[in-house]
């Protein structure tokens, strides 16, 4: 069978000592970078790009890709331990991951996210392997109208994320939408809310926003306050989940991985959206949604499975269509182009060893990450014993340096400061930052795609219902919204409020 031959060719390439070494280096660096709040995979990959000039193209891309998905493994560690996301896509993991750590169950949380990451990653690789090219053509059937509908569905689902007063959650989503409009308008070129400065021309950077709202605000709140329960010894036993948690795991991971794979395949949607939506869905399908936010493992398993699956399926449009879905994917595409390998339909025919070798290296990398991360759990948990007054200056330095290195621009640090202050103010007033972040991500996509769809239909609203996918997704959004309202009213009547 053809596939078997491809897999064996891929394995042969991936297990070649040089490639194996670069794969290990990539995933190791990725995990490390992912754990550190502020420094993200995009900074690491941009800095490694010049190095890839001098490497064999397969080794170079195996390494860069390793940094990329490795960072998704590490990203949740800081979320769980410090309530501070290592990467924006792990922001939602704070919601339940940190409460688990506060209950002394950091080991369990870290163990389950590692397994979930591996499950999600593997799911994504399987899709890449068996239906990659087919999925790529599905991607192409999503035009602006379909994207618009999908983003609306995401927004409706996301309204469920916060655990506080619904009015406050809604206010934060809308505030996020408003922040998302900063910068040059795609459709007219008008610079909005830039106050005459070039700095805001490209809008607010997601990393700056996430690090300010979650990271800096968390540090201000935690100085002199937080006392963690730290288990004396980190035994393998302390990482074992309760039976009910273990029983729910396969379904949570599968739901997360499916949602993540879907968003990963769609160019432009990204890992953060995948993790937020899967959290929201998990909360919807849970029998006990009110427990979310207090430390349930489902709240860390699903989003981590989702962002790792998305990290793998993001390669589908990049490799099979030559269309990079995100800035990081554009970097990896660039690394291939430097060596004259042109991703797209022709890559399978012209460079099968690179193509299949890369895919199989993902699996090797995921296995390495699993082996690497489980022993590290004990080490990370011990990190909680370091007095916070030693820890927070180091974290702050990392966050500042990470944000600065995004664009080599000090204004980004200034902006971080502004969002840190806003984030802390929000905490005091009982506003949660997670809905703001999802509004910020979805807002520009909703606006851009809606206006583009209206331009394409020359101003005819009919296109929203006449296209089958668009109509179906919008109908689903309306149903979800109605169901949410009805169930909210039912709860109010029952006196639970």
């Amino acid at each position, binding site marked *: 069978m053809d596939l078997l031959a491809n897999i064996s060719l891929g394995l042969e390439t991936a297990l070649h000592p040089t490639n194996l070494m670069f794969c290990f280096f990539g995933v190791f660096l990725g995990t490390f970078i992912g754990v550190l709040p502020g420094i993200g995979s995009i900074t690491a*990959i*941009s800095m490694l*790009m*010049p190095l890839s*000039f001098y490497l064999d193209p397969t080794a170079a891309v195996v390494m860069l890709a390793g940094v990329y998905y490795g960072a998704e493994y590490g990203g949740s560690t800081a979320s769980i331990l410090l309530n501070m996301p290592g990467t924006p896509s792990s922001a939602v993991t704070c919601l339940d991951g940190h409460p688990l750590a506060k209950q002394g169950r950091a080991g369990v949380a870290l163990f389950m996210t590692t397994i979930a990451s591996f499950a999600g990653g593997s799911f994504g690789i399987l899709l890449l392997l068996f239906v990659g090219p087919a999925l790529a053509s599905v*991607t*192409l*059937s*999503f*035009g*602006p109208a379909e994207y618009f509908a999908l983003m609306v569905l995401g927004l409706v689902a996301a309204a469920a994320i916060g655990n506080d007063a619904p009015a406050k959650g809604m206010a934060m989503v809308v505030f996020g939408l408003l922040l998302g409009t900063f910068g*040059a308008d*795609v*459709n*007219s*070129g*008008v*610079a909005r809310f830039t106050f*005459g*400065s*070039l*700095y805001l*021309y*490209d809008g607010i950077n997601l990393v700056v926003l996430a690090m300010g709202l979650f990271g800096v605000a968390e540090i201000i709140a935690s100085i002199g306050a937080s006392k963690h329960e730290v288990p004396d010894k980190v035994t393998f036993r302390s990482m074992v989940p309760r039976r009910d948690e273990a029983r729910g795991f396969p379904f949570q991971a599968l739901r997360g991985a499916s949602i993540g794979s879907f968003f990963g395949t769609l*160019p*432009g949607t990204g890992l953060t959206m995948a993790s937020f939506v899967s959290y929201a869905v998990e909360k919807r399908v849970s029998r006990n949604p009110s427990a979310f936010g207090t430390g349930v493992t489902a709240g860390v398993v699903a989003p981590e499975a989702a962002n790792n699956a998305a990290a793998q399926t993001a390669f589908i*449009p990049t490799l099979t*269509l*030559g*269309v*990079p*879905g995100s*800035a990081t994917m*554009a*970097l*990896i*595409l*660039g*690394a291939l*182009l*430097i*060596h*004259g390998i*042109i991703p*797209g*339909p*022709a890559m399978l025919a012209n460079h099968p060893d690179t193509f299949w070798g890369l895919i199989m290296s993902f699996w090797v990398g995921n296995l390495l990450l699993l082996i690497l991360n489980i022993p590290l759990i004990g080490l990370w948990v011990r990190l909680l014993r370091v007095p916070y007054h030693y820890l927070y200056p180091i974290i702050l330095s990392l966050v500042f340096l990470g944000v600065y290195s995004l*664009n*080599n*621009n000090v204004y980004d640090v200034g902006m971080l400061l502004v969002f840190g202050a806003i984030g802390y103010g929000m905490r005091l007033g009982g506003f949660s930052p997670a809905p703001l972040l999802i509004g910020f991500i979805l807002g520009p996509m909703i606006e*851009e795609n809606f206006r*583009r769809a209206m*331009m*394409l239909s*020359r101003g005819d609203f009919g296109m929203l219902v006449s296209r089958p996918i668009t109509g179906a997704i919008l109908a689903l959004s309306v149903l979800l919204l109605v169901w949410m309202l009805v169930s909210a009213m039912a709860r109010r009547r029952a006196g639970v409020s």
Partner: protein
Amino acid sequence: MKTQYHQGSRDMTRRRAIVAASAMTLAVTAFGGTAATAQSYPEKPVTMVMPFSAGGTADTTGRVIAEGMSRALGQQFVVENRPGATGNISYTSVVNAPADGYEVLIGYSATTACSHALMSNLQWEIEDLKPLGMFSASPMLLAVHPSVPAESLSEFIEYARANPGKINYGSPGIGSLVHIMMESFKLKAGVDMFHIPYKGTGALMPDALSGVIQVAMSGPAAIVPNHESGKLRALAVTGTERYAPTPDIPTMAEEGVEGLDTESWYGLFVRSDTPQEIVDTLAAGLKTATEDPQVLERAETAGVPIRYLTPAEMGERVQKEVADCRETIEKAGITAQ
């Protein structure tokens, strides 16, 4: 100034080590800054400011030439990405850096020529920059989705005339090089097409491949592979001659659309008040770099077309393009800001 970190001798207390380190910073401050003279240039690594993010065509092009410059002048040329505001963040930072030749701008055609006609709040002027030479230029390709019934540009123009305003073309943004060139094409060919702006070429490609937009224009990297696999049909290239790797695709002029010879180019600039000796050293270094066989080989694999123009030729080109750009923008009524 890059100095290595020195921790101080062992008998010092930790506090003293800090004091020593800060004293050293002060010493560097006081004495290190004045040493740069024109004769010994370059005596420390030179920063090449790249106006776009790492990984794209611009970045690859810049890195290839930085490698050649390092060899030509025997000093490290380090590419630093300072993206933002379609490249204007980098332009602003270079004209505000000291005029000592240690910050060299990798200029891009559209940012140089069109920014002033589009944006009102820029903090740099064309006169602030002195050209050191152009090192890369590549044509743009106009391609249509296979569903468009046109095998050549003239057939396409006929089809477009028969369907005024019905065809959509995509561009990577308002005021981008593609937007301006397509508007110029519409004026010159006498057709009416509808502009759909995107956030960059990456965002545009899925819609171009699926036929949501029927016309796309971009550099060879995005168009040629899809032309070869039949997902898009490239009809013409801009520029004065055919593009070497695709000799079967005619130029716009061959198909009867004259005057669309704008290319997407990269060249080096420094602040215009940089000492002349330094300017000459850099310009000579760039010329050597564009002839370096290793650079040419690297450029060939990476698909970067190397083309050299002297500082004077580049200066003329910039002047002409600034005027052309302003004219098209006014005629087509493109506004931003």
